[in-house]
């Protein structure tokens, strides 16, 4: 009897517990994921405060000295401070360049993922909610989009529109929206048939209110998972495009462009110009993926006890 009462009390407590609290507890069960989250938060902080913590402003040509070019890591500059990660062909401190590059890479990656999320979610919800012709048409577009590799689609857009920050963001959005649309449609189709939606309809609530206030919150878990992983993917894709020289402009080098700039020196053994921006890129991508993996595990209803 006593155990039964205790179980009931536990259940009541568990129910009273805010969902996000349970989420945090579940998330913290994996030390690796917590580590990933901490690393990612540090990366974000570094990116946000890049101009405060960098030893040098890498865009300010007055601060650059050609005498400092291609110094190995640990060498002192003409002005006396240490190039912890070496300097590039123009005498730019790599550490500062990486901090600034990180900022651009993150901004482009995150903003394109968020725009794609909003667009894809709206399309997926519409397809699921209205069904019929709308659904067929939208999902056929998704199928066609997904049958082409992302790099190819990005290439087509850049080839037609030319490069530039907003064009790259557009390309990344076009690459990603279909994935969100398909994900949200899958869960929205299930939610649509549930009674609370019917109840909302009976209350004569507007379509948009039902879709965004009632159905959408219940479709969030898979979206969060896809969204996390997609931030990493879009950072990687932007880096790839910039590396190919068809991404962001040279005036504001992202990590991909820094790596590309160092490529020519790498063959003569000056590895640091390419390798350190690459390591920064990897740390960012891997930390996001660690977080994404754990989110996938805790938000997957099939794995929940």
């Amino acid at each position: 009897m006593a155990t039964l009462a205790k179980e009931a009390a536990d259940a009541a407590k568990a129910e009273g517990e805010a969902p996000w609290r349970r989420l945090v507890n579940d998330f913290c069960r994996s030390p690796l994921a917590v580590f990933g989250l901490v690393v990612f938060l540090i990366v974000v902080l570094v990116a946000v405060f890049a101009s405060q913590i960098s030893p040098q402003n890498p865009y300010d040509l007055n601060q650059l000295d050609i005498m400092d070019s291609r110094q190995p890591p640990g060498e002192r500059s003409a002005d006396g401070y240490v190039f912890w990660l070496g300097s590039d062909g123009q005498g730019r401190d790599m550490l500062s360049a990486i901090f600034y590059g990180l900022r651009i890479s993150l901004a482009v990656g995150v903003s394109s993922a968020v725009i794609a999320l909003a667009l894809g979610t709206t399309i997926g919800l519409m397809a699921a909610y209205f069904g019929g012709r709308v659904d067929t048409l939208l999902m056929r577009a998704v199928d066609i989009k997904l049958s082409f590799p992302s790099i190819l689609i990005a290439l087509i857009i850049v080839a037609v529109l030319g490069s530039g920050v907003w064009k790259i963001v557009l390309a990344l959005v076009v690459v990603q929206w279909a994935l969100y649309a398909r994900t949200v449609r899958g869960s929205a189709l299930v939610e649509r048939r549930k009674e609370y939606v019917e109840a909302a309809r009976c209350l004569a609530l507007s379509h948009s209110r039902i879709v965004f206030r009632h159905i959408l919150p219940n479709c969030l878990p898979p979206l969060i998972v896809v969204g996390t992983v997609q931030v990493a993917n879009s950072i990687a894709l932007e880096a790839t495009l910039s590396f190919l020289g068809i991404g962001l402009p040279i005036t504001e080098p992202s990590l991909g462009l820094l790596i590309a700039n160092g490529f020519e020196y790498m063959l003569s053994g000056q590895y640091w110009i390419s390798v350190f921006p690459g390591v920064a890129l990897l740390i960012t991508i891997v930390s996001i993926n660690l977080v994404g993996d754990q989110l996938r595990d805790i938000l997957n209803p099939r794995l929940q006890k």
Partner: protein
Amino acid sequence: MTVFILRRLMQSFVVLFIMSLLVFVGVYAIGDPVEIFISPEADQIERERAIAALGLDKPLWAQYVYFLQGALSGDLGRSFRFSIPALELIMQRLPATLELTVAAMILSLAIGLPAGIYAGFRPESRLSKVIMAGSIFGFSLPSFWVGLMLILVFAVELGWLPSTGRGEVGTILGVTTSFATVSGIQHLILPALNLSFFNMALITRLTRAGVRENMLMDYVKYARAKGLGMRRVMFVHVFKNILIPIVTVVGIQMGQVLAFAVVTEQIFAWPGMGKLIIDSISNLDRPVIVAYLLVVVIMFIVINLVVDVLYSVLDPRVRLQDMKG
């Protein structure tokens, strides 16, 4: 079957039509076709003649018909840089890309299959854990970064393999290929390894999952009870069953690899069509860009069609009539 293929063909034409429309709008409405198809060095008379020949003085829909007519007869303009028809230029570069793609696929199967079978057969062993951890890197590392590291380690530090170009090509059975010469194969190893990395990880994981799933099935127990050795059960019985998803994935990934060859070709200066398109984008050689886009879209449509048909042939459980193509 015939109905399915016909339906897919029709759908393919719709996609092709939409894509040609998109490329057309991109090139003609957003960009300036006069700049795109007429060399900047042309004088005024040449320009006017070309404008008339391209039908640029006509309304937009008529221009689209002109564009389609040109595309259908293989006339997609001449490359500014090479002064030969853009289509011909792409066809010249196509074999190098196909070679790289095929080599990468073979490599990812040759390494991914054994690694996956081992990891599935002995999931608890240390080597299996190393394999699985490695496969995560195969997924999450950007391919261009892996390429750089390959060059740094094997070309710069160790000096074992060349890092740029295609090397000497020879002829086997009338086909010009790098496989024919030692230098060609040496040049092929690093780019192919780079390009195969992602698929290696994918095939390893799929194989492992397939082996683990199939090992629990009754037919394996039955074969073991019959007294067959583990080796025979694994390589004759289980292997056949895990092959179906792998063949499908290889088919689908073929297109992905072909597209990602763009990155690999650029890093290793491999003279394929991927390097051509990047060079053309940087040099504003627009006829080549347009031709490349149309050729690649056609290739993709064909690949997707072949994969769907192959899938149904391999796995009789899939009935094409049910698939909403």
